């Protein structure tokens, strides 16, 4: 087993151990996410029954993507602060793989865990709304991963800023509102939106789940754009994080919190 595989396995194991140790927190998080959706769905149906009935698929997919994006983003940006508070951040830097790769691997594991939680929430939403959605994992999983990765890149930028400025929670929270804008604005009206996180991926996921479109049936330019946006944002976020980590070492504040 090579070193990177060992590190990835350990990162995954650590995430699972911590989820188990914070089990109550984990369960409450999933329940809370479901309750928020139930509130939106039943509340919306009471106030505007036709609108909600006509756009249930969009509501389910939109909420699923937003929920997964927010979790993956929050975990990525707040992991750095948590490790600093625990006193383990500098230990991560003392790895032959460097803090950049350790944090990147942690972010990828966060995405995987988020997909599992997303699966549970999706199942609950389908049962609650009695909506018939096409859930083809071969299509949904890769599109969902590519949809969320740009957000992880943004999270890495905020994680890097947290190395320098420590308290970036308010700014990081504002970014979550931006995600709603990216999700809600119609892609056709604003073609440039396909280059911001979440927009194109959400549209493809909605199409896949509402009409049963398979991965290979999507236009190739759309898939390539989705892939390019994921790589660019994630890669950019990684480079920004590494640059900010170097800046934090120059200032001598890497392990501070």
């Amino acid at each position, binding site marked *: 087993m090579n070193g990177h595989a060992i590190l990835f396995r350990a990162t995954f194991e650590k995430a699972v151990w911590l989820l188990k140790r*914070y089990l109550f927190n984990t369960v409450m998080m999933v329940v809370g996410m479901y309750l928020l959706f139930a509130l939106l769905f039943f509340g919306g149906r009471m106030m505007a029954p036709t609108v909600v009935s006509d756009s249930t698929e969009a509501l389910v997919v939109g909420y699923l993507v937003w929920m997964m994006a927010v979790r993956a983003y929050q975990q990525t940006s707040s992991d750095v602060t948590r490790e600093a508070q*625990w*006193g383990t951040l500098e230990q991560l830097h003392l790895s*032959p793989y460097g803090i950049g790769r350790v944090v990147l691997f942690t972010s990828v594991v966060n995405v995987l865990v988020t997909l599992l939680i997303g699966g549970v929430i999706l199942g609950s939403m389908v049962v609650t709304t009695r909506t018939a959605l096409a859930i083809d994992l071969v299509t949904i999983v890769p599109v969902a991963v590519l949809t969320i990765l740009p957000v992880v890149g943004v999270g890495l930028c905020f994680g890097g800023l947290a190395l320098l400025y420590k308290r970036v929670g308010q700014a990081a929270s504002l970014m979550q509102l931006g995600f709603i804008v990216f999700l809600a604005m119609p892609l056709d009206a604003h073609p440039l939106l396909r280059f911001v996180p979440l927009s194109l991926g959400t549209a493809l996921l909605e199409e896949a789940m509402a009409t049963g479109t398979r991965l290979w049936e999507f236009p190739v330019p759309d898939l390539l754009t989705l892939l390019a946006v994921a790589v660019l944002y994630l890669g950019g976020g990684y480079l920004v994080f590494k640059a900010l980590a170097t800046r934090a070492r120059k200032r001598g504040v890497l392990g501070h919190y």
Partner: protein
Amino acid sequence: MEGNDFGSASAPAVRVTDLTKVYDAEDGEVTALDGISLEIERGTVVGILGPNGAGKTTLIKSILDLVRPTDGDVAVLGADVTAAGGELYRHVSAMLEGARNVYWRLSLRENLRYFTSLQGIDPDEVAEENLAFVESLGLTDKLDEPVNSLSRGMKQKATLACTLARRTDLVFLDEPTLGLDVEASAALVDTFREMVDRDEKTVVLSSHDMDVIEDLCDRVVVLNAGRVVVDDSVSALLDAFRTQSHRLRLAAPLDDVDRAAVAEVAESVSWSGTSDAVELTVTLEAPDDYYRLMRTLESAGATIERAETTTPDLESVFLRVTDRADPPTDELAVGGQR
């Protein structure tokens, strides 16, 4: 094994040259390190002593490339740390914040597994060796308990186990006994001693606790205000001061004029005693001053009932050195190595 061609086989474990670190602070700049140069030979145990704010942690973190210096160079095993990248950490590990360097919510077994993996070593392949670390630290029956539930001393031992699990040639221990009571500190020192005796590691240890340094280190570097004020072996440092501190018992008290004459000779003097006898403890600037002291007492007509050289501990030496070294000047270096 990766990283065998790292640096140079003949280079010292650590070489620090003209290291300066200036931090930006709200009220101006703060110089944490002010042109420090030193070398640490392979296989030695070196203690770094200094009062708060002396620059101990900044020095260690600069060697670990956790802090980038403003000026100067740091080489570990002959390799420049700022250019070495991750390869540096195949050779260097550190216990930086005592017990806080491990995950308290995870068990010791889980922590060991994680930190071994963080080094790129498959924990399954070294499981028995890791258990041996744990056994040598007396933590075998605590392996599956969350670190959070362990006593502070055990937490620090758990952190040490995770540091050792990285299997590096150089180990840095920054204030490893901080916050421990005397008993726990002594137990941890015993553990360090076994580790140092058993493994041929280069260990750099910073501490406020002089006993820890005295017990473990071959050599001590004293920092004050970002400069090296002493760099010598622990035994030479203690010897240098041992010959200069004396306790004398006189048969009768001296009058004020004779006391003033003694005070002229001594760097410092303290008097105690009764109407029958008097005891004085003198510290002399140089060993030859002992003869001047004897002549002064002879002139005063004093009868010396007992004379002994006092044994200073590192703490009193440290206090005197750092007190005299503010502001630091060249002639303050003890042992002549700066």
